[in-house]
């Protein structure tokens, strides 16, 4: 009797049925990763020199600054959680849209802050400020924070790595932009905001380009 290749493959695979370490649910893994990243961020804020920029920049607009920070943090956290879900086969594709409302809120509030600053300061509100430093900060912090995130995501060997890389890139860039606010002692101008958005785009593009070596898809 002829053994069909598929039957032979089933025999071979079942003979290789070594116990495997089952992955914890995505939310648990995402929460543990976010806790690790939060610890790293806390150390960075405490150890790196900064002169309480939140108080300097947020004076007179505490609510606005607080909401902006919360929206950036929420975007980052939701994108990371979504990346862990999308990495598992068969999870709803709706997870791709989960961080979008928070992202819209973050960009909207940042834009509103820029507009208020422009009205208050006049034409100097278009100044470039320290935009290139911000871009370097977001990209560098994303590379540092992104390495452990990529390692954690790669445990799932995602079968479709592009959406996982895009969500992971958005999450890590948003968290880096959140961290940046603790070292950013000046109001965000429209040019600064545009540079922040470009930095997020660069991080997402890098994550997309490096998705195969980083995520080791099945």
């Amino acid at each position, binding site marked *: 009797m002829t053994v069909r*290749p*598929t039957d*032979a493959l*089933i025999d071979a*695979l079942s003979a290789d*049925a070594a116990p495997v370490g089952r*992955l914890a649910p995505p939310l648990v893994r995402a929460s543990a990763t976010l806790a690790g990243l939060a610890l790293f961020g806390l150390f960075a804020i405490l150890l790196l020199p900064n002169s309480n920029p939140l108080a300097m920049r947020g004076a007179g607009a505490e609510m606005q600054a607080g909401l902006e920070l919360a929206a950036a943090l929420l975007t980052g956290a939701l994108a990371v959680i979504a990346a862990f879900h999308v990495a598992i086969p068969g999870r709803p594709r709706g997870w791709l849209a989960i961080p979008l409302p928070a992202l819209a809120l973050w960009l909207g509030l940042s834009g509103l802050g820029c507009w208020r600053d422009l009205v208050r300061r006049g034409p100097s509100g278009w100044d470039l400020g320290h935009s290139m430093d911000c871009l370097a900060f977001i990209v560098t912090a994303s590379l540092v924070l992104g390495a452990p995130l990529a390692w954690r995501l790669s445990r799932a060997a995602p079968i479709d790595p592009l959406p996982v890389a895009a969500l992971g890139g958005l999450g890590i860039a948003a968290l880096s932009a959140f961290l940046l606010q603790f070292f950013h002692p000046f109001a965000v101008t429209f040019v600064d905001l545009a540079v922040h958005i470009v930095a997020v785009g660069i991080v997402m593009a890098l994550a997309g380009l490096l998705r195969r070596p980083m995520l080791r898809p099945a």
Partner: protein
Amino acid sequence: MTVAGGDSKEESWGDLLAAAQRGDGGAYRRFLIAITPFVRALVRRRIRADDAVEDVVQETLLTVHRVRHTYEPGRPVEPWLAAIAGRRSIDALRRSSRTGAREVHDPAAYETFAEPAANIGDAGESARVLGPLMGGLPPRQKEALELTKLKEMSLEEASAASGQSVASLKVNVHRAIKRLRLGIGKDMFE
């Protein structure tokens, strides 16, 4: 979905896969056999050619093997399987459209002479020489050579089928070819 177990009790795919995650080879075998028709039906939704369907079914089973640790017991297996089969089908379609855009299939181009027997060349002679030499190879070298060169599996597929690591497969193929070259002369493998 369920499958009749060895003790005639019905076992769900989820239970079988959970047992396979714990290293139960029998449960894993029953699981793979039970899901194959389901996987084949999923693949047929996108791919028509029978040989291509079977290739994608095998690639799906290999992927199931690689990502079986991602299944969460208690959740339905079907969406998990459907996502894997769908992804492998899309990959196959992309490969095929890339190949179709760059290559022209012309079976006659491989023929040198109009007389079919003339195109077989010295295959019989090669088989007569190679047969005993292959038989003389150590088992792991022979297995590595058969899977990667004769069955044309990728290193990952051959590794899954044989249990040898990719690095060990490479070493064994290299050593096998070296031994065969010594036996029949170098030009056959150039």
